[in-house]
């Protein structure tokens, strides 16, 4: 089984900051907006090096989304930065009308998604954002798994003409994808080959899926791990190709099972190749305060949970 090495724990939001700074140097049309969270979003380098293209809007996210939409009129490529909760639920109608329906080239970049925001608790731990964003016609939805991939995705979405939701997180996590990767929107990445079960994961759960696959392998179960960084448009071919071989699926995400990656995968399977599926996701609940590791354990979003669901889904074949 192919194995992956963690080159050192680092946060995905720093990957966003690094990618944004690369864009600042490469593309003078890239502009950035932030709602009083410049440090948290790691936008300091862009702000310092391109002050004329950085817009501090204050604690006014609705206005930020509208200004971003307006900046596209004149050829700018705006990247907005705030927490995932304030990037989506708080400004849903602004995104719907001024960005998505208006077809504006705005990149909505969202940190601190999911439970791993930790101690701040449920007011800030959005677990519904993937669903909110993927329901908007024309919106591309991306949830990256590590620093390198987040940096590559940030750079890649500037070349995509249309609205994008880019979701990443707060904690320091394993960094294991190549630093020179070519990020292709809508293209799944197969990480391991397997024949007994497909583990289709996104975001922070991808590393957990690899850890699970390792343990399953030692128990004689061969797991195929697929990293779905783009939830919409979904790489249906990659999923169907894998399940044709494995005949069962575990989906894994740091999100409510309602509206998340798992539902999108389930729809693909139902329409094309129905097979048993188990969901590693939150069960229609809010989060709470705690350390990221405690929360992921309590809400069943780690390698142990994936192993359990993998065994369960194989038994259903």
């Amino acid at each position, binding site marked *: 089984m192919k194995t992956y090495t963690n080159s050192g724990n680092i946060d995905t939001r720093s990957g966003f900051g690094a990618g944004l700074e690369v864009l600042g140097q490469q593309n003078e049309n890239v502009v950035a907006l932030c709602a009083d969270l410049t440090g948290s979003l790691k936008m300091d380098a862009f702000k310092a090096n391109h002050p004329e293209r950085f817009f501090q809007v204050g604690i*006014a996210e609705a206005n930020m989304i509208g200004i971003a939409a307006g*900046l596209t009129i*004149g050829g700018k490529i705006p990247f907005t930065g705030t927490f995932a909760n304030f990037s989506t639920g708080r400004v849903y109608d602004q995104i719907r009308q001024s960005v998505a329906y208006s077809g504006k080239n705005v990149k909505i970049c969202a940190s601190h998604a999911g439970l791993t925001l930790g101690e701040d608790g449920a007011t800030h731990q959005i677990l519904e954002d993937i669903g909110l964003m993927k329901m908007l016609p024309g919106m591309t939805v991306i949830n990256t798994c590590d620093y390198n991939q987040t940096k590559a995705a940030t750079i890649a979405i500037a070349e995509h003409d249309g609205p994008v939701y880019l979701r990443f997180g707060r904690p320091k996590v394993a960094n294991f994808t190549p630093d020179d990767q070519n990020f292709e929107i809508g293209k799944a990445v197969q990480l391991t080959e397997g024949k007994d079960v497909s583990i289709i994961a996104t975001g922070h759960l991808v590393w957990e899926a690899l850890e699970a696959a390792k343990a399953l392998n030692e128990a004689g179960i061969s797991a195929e791990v697929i990293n779905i960084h783009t939830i919409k448009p979904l790489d249906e071919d990659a999923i169907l190709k894998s399940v044709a071989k494995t005949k069962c699926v575990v989906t894994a995400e740091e999100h409510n099972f309602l509206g998340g990656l798992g539902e999108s995968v389930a729809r693909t399977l139902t329409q094309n190749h129905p097979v048993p599926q188990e969901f590693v996701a939150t069960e229609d609940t809010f989060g709470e305060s705690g350390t990221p590791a405690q929360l992921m354990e309590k809400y069943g979003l780690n390698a142990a949970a994936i192993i359990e669901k993998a065994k369960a889904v194989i038994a259903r074949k």
Partner: protein
Amino acid sequence: MSTTQQLQDFVTQVRRDILRQVHQVNSGHPGGSLGCAEFFSVLYQEIMNYSKDFDMDGKNEDLFFLSNGHISPVFYSVLARSGFFPVEELQTFRKIDSRLQGHPTTHEGLPGVRIASGSLGQGLSVAIGAATAKKLNNDHSIVYTLHGDGELQEGQNWEAIMYAAANHVDNLIATVDYNKKQIDGSTDDVLALGDLKAKFEAFGWSVLELKEGNDIEAIQATLSLAKSQTGNLKPIVILMETEMGHGVDFMMGTHAWHGKAPNDVQLESALSQNPETLGDY
């Protein structure tokens, strides 16, 4: 430059277009549209510099954003009669497969429209973004907007009003259609706006009061004055007092025609008060 009579003829035809559009589909918003017929006509015929060959980016052109999208009938009429699309297309207003949706949108590619509006309170933010892009592009054109007065009850406006002053967005001229009416009644009864002039001034804007918002020459004078005040570090707002339903005797002075179309008899009466000038579509 058009003469005042030419502009008056243009306005009268726009009124006919508004009335005929909403009557044909028995829906739409004639009251506010009629009240803003002079403003739109002066803005597009006399004030703004733009190309009829529509380009979304509008570089080196003045731009206009309609925030209160429900008064689409007046917007569509003036865009068509200013050359953005064929006047005949007005007969597709609110019908299936039309570019003239109930509320304006870029989605169907209608020339002259740069943002969807209808859900209220979003237009000023968008205009600030477009005005900021102009500054980045070293483009000295002006961005214009129109907002309903009731629309100012939406909080996003005040985020935008604060931002524009703090960031010296001085290539922006916002106009408030200050007719003091909204769906449920007078703005005073629904949610009093208080002293709008003092509020804008307290937020750091230059405020121009236009008491005769249905007078062509007064509108011309105020918009020209506003233009002359751009580039002075302050955003500019015109508080334009209009009469909802202006130009149709039974629609004036009431909020009853905010979102109601006239029947056949009422249409005939309304059109007789606004005789055809430039040719009906």
